[in-house]
């Protein structure tokens, strides 16, 4: 039987959406300078008026006209991720005068590697109470390779996806004229992906929300619920 402990974190993201914050056109520089006090090696990777991406050792940041997002490295401890979120979102929302958050989403993607894709499909098909009974569907007599569940009410929602897949990683960092000289990194990984997105549906006032506490707590909730689903 599968357990959430069999999976490794592939990425964890917190994204907060809000009404269009037009102060982004004036204050993106202030935001980056303020963030630099905490994320000391932060650097901008791409910038345009309505969207700026930056990166530091702690993770990848994006600020948009209507949203802000932080994705951390897979090995980041949950309590550290919560701290980074608190600093990032508090700094950004202070500068952009954001008072109401229209959606707060926490997305945790985990992966369990297997030797072959078939092995991953078998693992998915073996999950009790989740996999549909094997039958010919759309003239295909194979177990489902992906399942998605969504629960949502007027205030909270969650999506869980399970997918057997092959992921191909290709990294080429050199410019086109040097790509022959520089070694490319390529890898194919088979496995089962567990992708959980927990989010708010109703608007949240900023003074209701403490990012550090919320992220840490919901990381626990996600893990616990995922375990419950896998165990059936």
């Amino acid at each position, binding site marked *: 039987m599968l357990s959430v402990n069999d999976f490794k974190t*592939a*990425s964890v*993201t*917190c*994204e907060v*959406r809000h009404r*269009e914050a037009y102060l982004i056109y004036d204050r993106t520089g202030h935001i980056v300078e303020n963030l630099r006090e905490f994320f000391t090696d932060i650097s901008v990777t*791409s910038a345009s008026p309505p969207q700026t*991406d930056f990166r530091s050792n702690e*993770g*990848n*940041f*994006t600020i948009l006209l*209507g*949203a802000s*997002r*932080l*994705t951390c490295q897979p090995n980041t401890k949950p309590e550290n991720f919560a701290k980074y979120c608190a600093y990032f979102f508090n700094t950004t929302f202070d500068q952009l005068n954001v008072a*109401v958050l*229209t*959606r707060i*989403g*926490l*997305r945790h*993607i985990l992966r369990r590697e297997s030797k072959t894709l078939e092995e991953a499909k078998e693992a998915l098909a073996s999950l009790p109470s989740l996999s549909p009974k094997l039958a010919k569907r759309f003239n295909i007599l194979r177990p489902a390779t992906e399942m*998605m569940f969504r629960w*949502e009410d007027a*205030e*909270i*929602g969650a*999506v869980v996806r399970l*997918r057997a*897949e*092959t*992921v*191909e*990683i*290709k*990294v*080429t960092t050199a410019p086109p004229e040097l790509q022959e000289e520089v070694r490319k990194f390529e890898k194919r990984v088979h496995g089962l*992906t567990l*992708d959980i*997105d927990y*989010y*708010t*549906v*109703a*608007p*949240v*006032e*900023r*003074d*209701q*929300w*403490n990012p550090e506490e*919320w992220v*840490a*707590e919901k990381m*626990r*909730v996600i893990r616990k619920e995922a375990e419950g689903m896998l165990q059936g």
Partner: protein
Amino acid sequence: MSDTETSAPKPSLDGLLLVPDEAGTAGTKRSDSTATSARDLVFKTSGATALAPVISIDRLWEAAPGTTSQMVRALELLKEASDNLTQAKSCNDPRTADRFVQRVQVGLPRLFACRSIGDGFGVIVNSIHFAFANLQGAPLNQDQINALWRVVRELRNKPAMTLQQGIERVSQLEETGLEVDPADLESLVEGSAEEDEQGLR
């Protein structure tokens, strides 16, 4: 409701993605099974200017059993305090009302332990503590109970309020005659002012 987008590392996009996140940034794709972001980003309104109802604080802070979250703890304690003050408000007998108020006072140290959840939270809990201390055992009058009840309820609904918002709530307590500063602080400030004056002479 569209998915939470991710800022996954962006490898070359010749093949599949490093993280199959179905999102819509430069290195990722948006899921075609959910609503587009353009519609989601529209701020929900009802009527001319009314906002959609905000999330209830208890749903936002639902916790898994065994949580160690200070916020969850603080909300439980504030609920207890709010319930006690509701009882105190509705009592006709001042002595019974005072018993409920004393229960609030007893819970303050535990609330104080949660003060890291917000600056506004900290200043309000501190002020309530000193308000009780300065009363030196005297009971709160009806106006003071009402004001305290309003502030505690508001703090429970907005536990992450800013320092400025917290100070505004403390002012509401002061308006009912509650002394929210430590007694020693006043003498310290007076002493300091006298020293300054002497220094100037």
